[in-house]
């Protein structure tokens, strides 16, 4: 996947590109409006991570440009302004998703992949990881051909692990992915522990390997080397 990161803050941009590069994406960076338009004119990208506030322009104008030039890229807006107007405007202008700063890098990755799946594979996409097989269109999971009976949260959790393979996911990051913004006052990490435990149990019961391991004191990781 080829991604254009449009972000004026270099440190933040570096965080994003180094995480995504390790994920195997081809990452390019534009730090201002002018550069972004320039790159969009010269190259084709699968996904664009777009910051709204740029030193020489508004990210929403870039969105308008993408739309008018009929550029066929998925757009994820990243903004420090957690404003409803920006979100609504952005989505109305054709952005695919909206992420508020500060965000977790695994979350950014998951959102970009989800956009990619929706945009280019029309949602009908099969994720295959060794013996685990996911139909994203009907949310079915099978291990070694055995159907798994997963709850919605467990399904989301598995997808999240598969999106961020070999990455340490903290309980905080997982909790936020599963419950979103406003349930933050809930986040007693027991809930995460419970979900992970149930998911592992179900995979093992279906003769799958126990790929998800506890990283002591940190969180969890889907280890592909088992």
């Amino acid at each position: 996947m080829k991604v254009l990161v449009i972000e004026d803050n270099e440190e933040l941009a570096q965080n994003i590109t180094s995480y995504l590069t390790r994920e195997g994406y081809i990452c390019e960076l534009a730090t201002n409006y002018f550069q972004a338009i320039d790159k969009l004119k010269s190259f084709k990208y699968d996904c664009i991570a777009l910051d709204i506030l740029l030193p020489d322009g508004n990210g929403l104008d870039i969105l308008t440009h993408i739309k008018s030039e009929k550029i066929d890229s998925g757009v994820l807006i990243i903004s420090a302004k957690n404003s409803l107007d920006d979100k609504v405007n952005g989505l109305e202008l054709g952005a695919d998703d909206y992420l508020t700063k500060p965000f977790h890098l695994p979350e950014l990755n998951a959102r970009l992949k989800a956009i990619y799946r929706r945009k280019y594979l029309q949602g009908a996409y099969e994720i295959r990881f060794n013996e685990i097989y996911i139909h994203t269109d009907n949310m079915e999971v099978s291990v070694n051909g055995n159907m798994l009976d997963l709850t919605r949260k467990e399904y989301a959790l598995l997808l999240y692990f598969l999106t961020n393979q070999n990455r340490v996911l903290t309980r905080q990051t997982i909790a936020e992915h599963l419950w979103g913004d406003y349930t933050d006052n809930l986040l007693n990490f027991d809930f995460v522990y419970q979900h992970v435990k149930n998911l592992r149990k179900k995979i093992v019961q279906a003769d799958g390997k126990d790929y998800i391991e506890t990283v002591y004191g940190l969180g969890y990781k889907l280890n592909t080397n088992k």
Partner: protein
Amino acid sequence: MKLIQKFTLWYLVITFIVLIIGGVFAYHSIKSEVDYEQVRYLRKNIDFTIRELHKGVMPDSLSQNRMEISELAMSTPRTKLVVADTMVYTRYLRRKEPQLKVSISRVINGHHYYISTYGAIVDTHDITNAVVKSISTIFLIMLVVTGLVSILISRKVLSPFNKTLKAMQQFRLQQKKPLVLPATRTKEFKRLNSFLSLMTNKALKDYQSLKEFTENASHEMQTPLAIIMGKLELLLESDIDDEQAKLIVSAHNAVEKLSKVGQSLTLMTKLDNREFESQEMLDLSRVLNDSLFAFQELLEMKSLSLEKEIEDDVKVKIHPLLVNILLNNLIGNAIRHNIKGGVIFVKLTSNILEISNSGEPLSIPAEKMFNRFVKNNQSNESVGLGLAIVKQICEQSNIDISYEYTENKHNIRLVF
């Protein structure tokens, strides 16, 4: 007491005192004038008698009602004209009356005569009565006129003042509208109005800059926080040992919390700025059911039992985003602050929403739970803004909220 009533009362008291002093003065000047005339009259009588005696008229024939002539020894010292007060019995009034007495002794035709006469044109009682009568009449007229005039004038003169008061009462900082005061030509009111305008404008400006500061501070915080969070996440992926990992996770959690505080404060600023105005009626029954459904898993994990009595089609005027935050915070609290195997009871009628849950007793008064950064358990991981946000949402949406802890249950009650 009204200002005008005070003015009038003071005015009347002063008038009363002045009238009494004036009355005494009037009495004395009238009395002295009358006395002067009286003396002149009596002297004329005496002069007449003396002239008659000079002509050789016999004193006996001149003596009459009020004229007394007696002969004195030649050795008696002569006296000049003497004016004195005396009490004389008046027959027709049947009492002694104060009268003026004028007397003189003269040597006429070799005889030493003592001539005296007395009389009163005006009675002193009559003077007193007249003075008192006229002064009380003046006072009465004053009373009526002052009363009427004060009412009329106060309406006219004080009307800018009353308008200013009304404008002040209706002034609200949150509305961000400058104070509009009526124009007036009265110097004092002009000063008052300009002072009030200055003060309220300053308050508005300060309020605005405080708001902007909070908003900017929490905005500007988010990018650096995002950088820190990302760096920590990248660091987690590198080759680290357990000790380092723990340190990183602690830092990560703290950053997370800081970002939540920032977001909550931004939300509250937005609520203050009334960015979420809604005229739409929202189906609260549906939203509440959806919300409870979303929490189903969490309920099960904590083995909490949920009882609900939700009436259908309860409509409330509230912004959809706000109602989500409101319900998530309240239900979230009911789950998080519950005990293992506890209960949650949710009841919705046409104008009341009640959420109650079992839980540990409060360590601080229930009404304080709505304050910012107040937590029942200070060591708790939460930020302590949840209920403050709830309260603010309720205030903005004209919902009354109350919280009490009774019979080992936390009860939140919303009346809309």
